[in-house]
């Protein structure tokens, strides 16, 4: 005959197991119910502290193949590098928007911008930026010129620019725009002026 205290012990253990199972099942249902869409998989930038300032972003428009200035007010930190990175992140937010005039692939991000004296800006993009970028001379050129011209128009003294992907040099952005060399910023500014003409 099974002792009474053993029966009670097993019954209590079964009750606890059942209760725990119900609790875990309920928790799992809550996690599944929460919407983790692709849009939310983008990294969340830390909040920027600093006064809101007006900057001019040079935004690419695929429909007409042009670059247009767009004044925006964004919070900018004090440091030169951090300001540069924030400007480009503001530009990318436009490109990642649902109604983007120049869509970039999901997960595209500016990892960092390094300002190296004298006059060099190094823009470090993440792999998703380049890997998911559409291929074509104009579409890649619009991206490159938009990034570089936005920096040079808002931060004086930049004479050269280099674009890295995941901290490394890459031959092209998506098969066309050359990333292996340093960009001559005055020449890029001329291209930007050319791209602002619709003719």
């Amino acid at each position, binding site marked *: 005959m099974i002792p009474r205290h053993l029966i009670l012990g097993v019954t209590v253990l079964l009750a606890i197991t059942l209760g725990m199972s119900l609790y875990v099942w309920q928790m799992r249902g809550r996690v599944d119910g929460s919407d983790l869409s692709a849009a939310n998989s983008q990294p969340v930038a830390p909040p920027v502290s600093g006064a809101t300032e007006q900057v001019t972003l040079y935004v690419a428009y695929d429909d007409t*193949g042009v670059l247009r200035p767009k004044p925006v007010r964004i919070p900018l930190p004090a440091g030169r590098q951090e300001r540069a990175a924030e400007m480009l992140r503001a530009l990318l937010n436009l490109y990642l928007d649902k109604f983007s005039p120049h869509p970039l692939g999901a997960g595209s991000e500016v990892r960092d911008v390094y300002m190296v004296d004298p006059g060099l800006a190094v823009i470090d993009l993440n792999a998703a930026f380049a890997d998911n970028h*559409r*291929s074509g001379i104009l579409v890649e050129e619009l991206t490159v010129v938009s990034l570089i011209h936005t920096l040079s128009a808002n931060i004086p003294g930049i004479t050269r620019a280099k674009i890295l992907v995941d901290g490394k040099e890459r031959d092209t952005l998506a098969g*066309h725009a*050359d990333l292996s060399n*340093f960009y001559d910023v005055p*020449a890029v500014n001329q*291209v930007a002026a050319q791209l602002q003409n619709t003719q």
Partner: protein
Amino acid sequence: MPLSSLGTLLPRILGGPITFNQNSRRLLIGNVAVHFTAQVSKTAPPKLVINFTAPVNPMIATEPGKLRMVFTHEAVVAPGSQVLTFDSKIIPSASFQENNGAAELVVAASVPVIASFSHDGRSITIEPPPQPATPAQPPPTTAGPTAAGPTPASPPLVTTAPAAIRRYFAVVDPSHGGDERGASLTGQLAEKDINLAFAHRLRQELETRGLSTLLLRDGDSSLSLDQRASLTNSAHPAIYICVHAASQGTGVRVYTALVPAGIENRGPFLTWDAAQTASQVLSRSAGALLVTELQNKQIPARSLIAPLRPLNNITTPALALEVAPPSDDATQLNSPAYQQLIAGAIAAGLADLRDQLEAGR
């Protein structure tokens, strides 16, 4: 420490095999040697096919009766014998030597020969050039295909006899190729295929106007950007045109080079990444004229500057064309009539520029 002791000392320090040739100043660390085999085919005319175990990109120079390939970046090593002899009167022998850190392969030939790359740079074929095409009388009609002359199966460089050198007016480069598909224009349509089809039409239109044209790739082969530039610079054409296609926008965009920063040409020596600098003015005026020609044919066209290799590595006037569809439908890029319309306009513009471009050589 005597230099001759490196051969015994380095393997112990590095823990791996080395090959050290003191006389030629070549030190190969590890199993990096690139071997090759050479064979002359019995075809008429004969072809010397050299197969390498890794891709190569030699500097190629010519002199009467010889084609010289210098391997400065590849660890090409000698075959069994320094001198290779072949059972051919046209290409009787080749000799291998190492000197000043580089390997050199000299092919002797009794007639002018050309070299071409294939298999992603793993094979070099040396053969007499095809007979020049007889240019047709200037422009009859642009509609429908016209008879084009024989075309080399792959990119010719230069001939070995100056009297027989064929001077190409234009080098047309269908971009991408092989594993490199370029842009996906539609689900099925790859940029590399449209580029090739359009390049064929452009060559046809140019040759119809008496402008000899070399296609850098005539099939689905891949060439590196450096190879494309080397082949073009060796051919010394009056103009280089690389062909791209895109699904964005409409019409044709004509690009000239954006030369990178901080690179200068000093004296007679050209820096590889700024080789285009001296020809930039002529390239831009040629680009502007082509845009006008296209617009006259009611084709939307724009002239732009782009950071696009190998434009900046080309020593002669150089343009890139990005052909976009006539409307939102990218499948129209595949339309023969549309390709013919654009090719005809470009060829007409280049024919107008002929004297100006020839003068710039």
